């Protein structure tokens, strides 16, 4: 998900102009073809499907204009799902970035074995979301999980199967854990770019470690933090289906049904294709809006050192 942005950051090289007229188009053609086939065509299909009411087999269908959208937006379950998604995404982004920053700062301070710490902290990124989900599910399974056992012996009635808050905590832990490595990598790189002279000067002026971090290091990390904020939000919004599917399946009740999971559930389990398509079109609009806002407004306020 993050790769195009990395590419953009890196390729700030001088402009190269091709003398040919047709060659550039030819070179771009494969990419365009792929975009057409894998983005515009399915997106168009989704748009068309979102205005249909159809039985699962497609034997009978009616064109209903925006009725599906009206229905979805008036559905309390959908509004609940929006709320769940906001809570989940914010919590995941904050936890994933907070922990990663803390670990990065600590790993920077290590005198010996820096490389080892870094390698070990980056490893979890290689784990597939569904597997990460299963790991956490086993650890916190009320019957057989070792961490659930610990919680119980501490007097906490741990029950993610019935307690929505517990289920959400479990989900956020699994989703954030998976993303910490990635954030860690970028924070380590960001920290190394902070000029040592500034920190040393501040230290000589008597600024403590905490003060130095918040007034010098943290503001200088802003570009990295902003970039990670985009990546983490997008990750939490759209890349966590596997984790939700493996850990809670949207339950208990509907307390962990995110927007993406609801698209799947309505479309592939409940076979209400029109509603599901309408929801995915809304999601598409959300992504476009989010990206536009983040790059138009938030990016301007970030100081790129």
């Amino acid at each position, binding site marked *: 998900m993050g790769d195009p942005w990395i590419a953009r950051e890196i390729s700030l090289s001088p402009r190269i102009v091709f003398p040919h007229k047709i060659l550039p188009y030819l070179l771009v053609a494969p990419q365009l073809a792929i975009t057409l086939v894998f983005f515009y065509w399915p997106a168009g299909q989704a748009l068309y499907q979102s205005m249909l009411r159809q039985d699962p087999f497609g034997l009978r269908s009616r064109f209903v204009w925006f009725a599906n959208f009206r229905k979805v937006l008036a559905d309390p379950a959908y509004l609940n799902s929006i709320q769940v998604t906001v809570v989940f995404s914010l919590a995941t982004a904050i936890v994933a970035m907070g922990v990663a920053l803390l670990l990065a700062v600590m790993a920077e301070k290590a005198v010996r074995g820096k490389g080892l710490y870094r390698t070990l902290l980056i490893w979890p990124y290689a784990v597939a979301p569904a597997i990460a989900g299963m790991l956490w599910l086993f650890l916190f399974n009320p019957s*057989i999980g070792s961490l659930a056992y610990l919680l119980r012996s501490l007097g906490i009635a741990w029950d993610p199967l019935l307690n929505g808050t517990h289920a959400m905590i479990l989900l956020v832990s699994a989703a954030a854990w998976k993303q910490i490595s990635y954030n860690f990598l970028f924070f380590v790189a960001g920290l190394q770019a902070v000029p040592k002279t500034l920190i040393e000067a501040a230290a000589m002026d008597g600024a403590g470690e905490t003060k130095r971090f918040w007034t010098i290091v943290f503001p200088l990390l802003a570009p990295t933090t902003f970039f990670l904020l985009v990546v983490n939000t997008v990750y939490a919004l759209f890349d966590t289906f596997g984790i939700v599917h493996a850990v809670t*399946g949207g339950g208990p*009740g509907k307390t962990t049904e995110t927007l993406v999971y609801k698209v799947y559930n309505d479309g592939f*389990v409940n076979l209400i294709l029109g509603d599901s398509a309408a929801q995915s079109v809304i999601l598409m609009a959300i992504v476009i809006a989010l990206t536009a806002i983040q790059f138009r407004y938030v990016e301007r306020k970030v100081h790129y050192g």
Partner: protein
Amino acid sequence: MKFFGFAAGVAATLTLFSTTSAFAVTQISWWHAMTGANAEVVDKISKDFNASQSDYELVPVFKGTYPETLNAGIAAFRAGQAPDILQVFDVGTGVMMAAEGAIKPVAEVMTGAGMTFDKSQYLPGIVGYYSKPDGTMLSFPYNSSSPILYYNKDIFQKAGLDVNSPPKTWNELWEAAKKIKTSGAASCGYTSTWLTWIHLENFAAWNDVSWATQQNGLAGGDVELKINAPIFVNHFQALADLAKDGTFKYGGRTSEAKQIFLAGECGIFTESSGGLGDIVKSGMNYGIGQLPYDTDAKGAPQNTTPGGASLWVFGNKSDEQYKGVAAFFAYLSKTDVQEYLHQKSGYLPVTLAAYEATKKSGFYEKNPGRETPILQMTGKAPTDNSKGVRLPNLPQVRDIQNEELEKMLAGQQTAQQALDNAVTRGNAAIKEALEN
């Protein structure tokens, strides 16, 4: 995964060949959702069928879980690439039934191939479930199961309960569960898989009370749920009360609770008869009883309904292919094939002859409990309340019920509120599904 993809590709290619060229052998594709020991049964049956004749070749293809298989079938149909035979789980029955233009009733497939289909040869409870209201057989019951009661004899002994008489009624079960908990024999008294299937659908059938109007949806048309009747409310309030102090422990929406029972946490357990294999494997000192019934119900115990899956035949295939499908179903109905399927997989035999033969062989004496689900299902002729349940959107309605029951078990609402909400939301969803 790669292997399955490959197998699917092979199957697709073979299907293509069979329709375009004049091969002597007609390929019949069968998409199924069986794993583990049950997948071996599918392969063995297919191989034996192919060896038994030379006109048709049956090609079984694994398509994932039950919902995934159903979705694969639907997607393939929409793309004009439907398989000949699709295995669909009980919950998907209504979905398939509503797709009249997409499927061909099994009864028609059989008569079209010049075979007689004698329904009296099959277990009535199962045949009833997979038939239209007018009696036309729609799909072929492949694997059927029914919910039964399992109990841990060691825990029973510790709690001072009689190890040879499992609770027969729900009230007896609540008492036994409390005793297990208070005596400290186990940390929980009772747990159950599939609350919707066992405590709503089968609870209604077994106690001969209505789950929904229109013969629980089997008669079609406008269906309204009836699950907020007092007998359901009392049952679930008792369950919710037991959940408060952990006498009843919730495991999840499907079969997750099996782990809790296998771990020895709970003494009593209700689950599909198809779940026996894992309990046997665990080496637990277990016992089996009938599903408990409610003493407030006059007709109880009536009969339980089948779960599991059946085989559906898609429409718009060639006569040759239908003949092949019919030949396979005839083969599948043979007594020795059914006996093998029943004894190996733990699912019920679908023909009476196979049941009798298994009985005669002394299998049930060696494997007590294997007969319980059959007796439960065939004890009495099914009534309008006990032929099973059918809705065009049963998966969605079950989801709604699960959500409300979870809120109830978490102490956020009473049983009355939970079931009222489930009825209101469920009815709205059914209405909408019928409009589509």
